């Protein structure tokens, strides 16, 4: 490929937990990769699976949803719905032989700055190994 691969990871983070967790990672000066492009949403359940599909087809190498731990959603049950929809999307990717490992769901609370950094590092490493998303170059999409 010649050029080094700099992954891009779209991260939908809920305002109350994961986004705040990301903030905490920052203020605690924890290192996490610049690959992560955070998008703040009010709740993980705001993320229609269509958003993930959009990001995936537009060339995001990885797509992450971050939400509050089950039971902790600030709208009570949003993240349980997120979880079901995520399972549906994974199943679709599976059936179609699309790379479902490019999708990730993580529960990260507002106090889990370190977990946020760990998830980002792990996920970026994994994507780095997978290489660029083929949708990046495919003119058909």
């Amino acid at each position, binding site marked *: 490929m010649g050029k080094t691969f700099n992954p891009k990871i779209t991260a939908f983070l809920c305002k109350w937990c994961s986004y705040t967790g990301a903030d905490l990672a920052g203020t605690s000066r924890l290192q996490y990769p610049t690959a992560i492009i955070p998008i703040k949403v009010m709740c993980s359940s705001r993320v229609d699976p269509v958003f993930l*599909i959009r990001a995936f087809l537009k060339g995001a190498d990885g797509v992450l949803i971050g939400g509050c731990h089950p039971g902790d959603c600030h709208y009570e049950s949003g993240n349980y*719905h997120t*979880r079901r929809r995520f399972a*549906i999307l994974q*199943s679709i990717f599976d059936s179609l032989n699309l790379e479902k490992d490019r999708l990730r769901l*993580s529960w990260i609370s507002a106090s889990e700055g370190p977990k946020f950094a760990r998830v980002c590092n792990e996920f970026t490493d994994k994507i780095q190994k997978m290489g660029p998303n083929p949708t990046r170059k*495919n003119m058909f999409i």
Partner: protein
Amino acid sequence: MSKMLTTDHGADKSVVDLLRFLLDTEKVSGVLTLRKTNTSGSLDYGLLTRSQELDRAVPLMPVMPANAAQSLSLITPTQKPIAVVVKPCELRGFVERIKREQGSLDNVLTLSPTCGGVIPLDTYIKKSKDNLTKDYYKQVKAGEIPESIRPTCKACEYFVPMTADITVSVVGEQNLDSKCRFILNSDKAVSMTEGFGSVENGDLDAKILDDHLKKREKEKKALFESIKFKQDGLDGMIDVFGKCIGCHGCSRVCPICYCLLCDFESRNFDQNVSLFEKELEQKGALRLPPDTLFFHLGRMSHMSFSCVGCGQCTDVCPADIPVASVFKKIGENTAALFDYVPGKDVNEDIPVLVFKEEEFKELGE
């Protein structure tokens, strides 16, 4: 043991007779049935309120000019009782719509056959109708899968209606032209048919239906094998959906897709010129109009778990894409996550409206 009503006329005539009886005795004020549009042989669904209109009715005709689930949404909830004759998958489609607050079964008496499958519209329109249906019924009576039916019908395991008030026994009925058996599945069915004929204990022939089911299951396996995309993943999808002209006909005729403004027809995902330019920089070429795969993947994520596999989408696709076969396969997998069978139980919520705290614990790391 269920209640059963037997007539000594052929099935089509018996169903028409029953509908006429229901109208004449004012047990219902209208009936929804397939009927001949005119003498040219075309078919449509009609909501009929006068019994002489029934002269043109062909309730069991193995054709689906529209998935009746959509029409049932238009005419329910109804204050006046009506009777409807629809295929099992149309009924399941309607049950899925009711779960989405798109209609109601109150005051509706549902009749549905054990279904031999339907002939694709294209075939029906172009071929000699007499020969077509003659061959069709020969195979249906013998409990075989008719050659001419939709691919997803051949692979349909739910040809016995799940929630019909009255089941009309068709598959495997050797004497279909000279007698007809109605299985009365509900109290409503028993009371509405009172006076039409004598009722005894009886049921569908489990052995015949079971043998038939095995044949369908075999067909399903073959169908799913056949749509295994030649290439993996993205290339495979492009291989299958590359011909798509983006007419969205498949979602327009879908019994599940009820949104007045579909996400994929809205401007929600429009992008401006600078974004196109950015993409061009990366890729060096763009297919226009864009978002073909986006539409199909997105639709799968919205409705696949409710897909009843009726095959209407494949039927209307001008680009000859096996839309229904793909969606049926995807849908089986997404529904299986929740042990969900679309159209089985009107009181069961669709999977995206409910959840269990204790499920999918493996997700979220």
